């Protein structure tokens, strides 16, 4: 019997589309496409003993205290002076005073080499940047009351991160001619070293005013 005489019986595949549609619908329903996003932070390791907790010593001029109290009012205080915001919505336009990000930027940069702002120290950052004075010892300390609203706290964190992001963007434009986003990983590292995020989240204190 010649082989060519055999015929493969036709398979009825018309229901295949229906079955795969059903599966497709199932996966469409159960899949969650939303990606979680947020403000990334790094916590300090737990204190090994009681002494270590109080051993961190920061010069007064290197310290910017950001205080969010129980009424969600925000107070920025460095050696140069004090800025006050009545609530988190005022952080950007400031209603009379400087926007918070500008206060933070001025604090980190200390362009005027003021003795009341963080100490400028010359440091070498490699080829395109070279040796520039930076305030490598500055600390931004965010403090809050026990009854502060979480959203006010996040708004403050957000403003601080925004200030750093703008600084890094400006640095990237000055030294590499593009925005921070378009830099290579090595270049980003250089810029990050130039403007390191030095944010301290202090232990809570009860300043009163809450219930």
């Amino acid at each position, binding site marked *: 019997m010649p082989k060519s005489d055999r015929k493969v019986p036709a398979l009825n595949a018309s229901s295949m589309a229906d079955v795969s549609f059903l599966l*497709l619908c199932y996966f469409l329903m159960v899949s969650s*496409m939303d990606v979680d996003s947020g403000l990334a932070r790094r916590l300090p390791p737990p204190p090994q003993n009681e002494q270590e907790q109080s051993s961190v010593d920061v010069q007064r001029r290197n310290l910017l205290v950001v205080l969010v109290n129980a009424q969600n009012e925000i107070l920025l205080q460095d050696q140069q002076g004090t800025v006050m915001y009545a609530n988190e919505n005022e952080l950007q336009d400031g209603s009379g005073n400087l926007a918070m990000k500008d206060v933070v930027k001025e604090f980190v940069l200390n362009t005027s080499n003021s003795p009341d702002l963080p100490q400028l120290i010359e440091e070498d950052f490699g080829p395109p940047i070279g040796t520039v004075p930076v305030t490598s010892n500055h600390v931004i300390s965010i403090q809050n009351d026990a009854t502060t609203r979480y959203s006010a706290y996040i708004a403050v964190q957000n403003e601080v991160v925004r200030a750093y992001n703008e600084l890094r963007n400006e640095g990237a434009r000055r030294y590499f001619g593009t925005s921070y986003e378009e830099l290579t990983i090595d270049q980003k590292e250089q810029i990050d070293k130039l403007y390191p995020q030095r944010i301290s989240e202090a232990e809570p204190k009860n300043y009163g005013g809450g219930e």
Partner: protein
Amino acid sequence: MNTSSMPDIVFAVLFFFIITTTLRSETLMVRMKLPTASEIQKLEKKSLVTYINIGPPLDARLGTGTQMQLNDRFAQVTDIQNYIAQEKASMNEADQPLMTVSIKADENTRMQYITDVKQALRQAYALKISYSARKGEN
């Protein structure tokens, strides 16, 4: 009309969804409206992220106080250390230092609660955290 290629197309789409999907692993038991922020970053690898949900319970009979949900049940702040240890143990050893804890808290939560959670996370050596937030204008 020739529809013989339709199953192929549907299968291609199906495979796409099978691969990209991550099953919703837990049902939320707390109500939360995340705070808004503009400078947020995406959390890259979902397998490295552990979630802590904080907010008032959805079930009104449980009151309106702030509660915390770990996995599928309510928990106390003191349970965090065990929870983190458990999650760490279930991870690849190389991935353990990269573990990120995403704090998903309602915007009206008192900071006292968040601070307690943060202190517990420090004790558990889960130092990479992310304050989960919605993309917003402010």
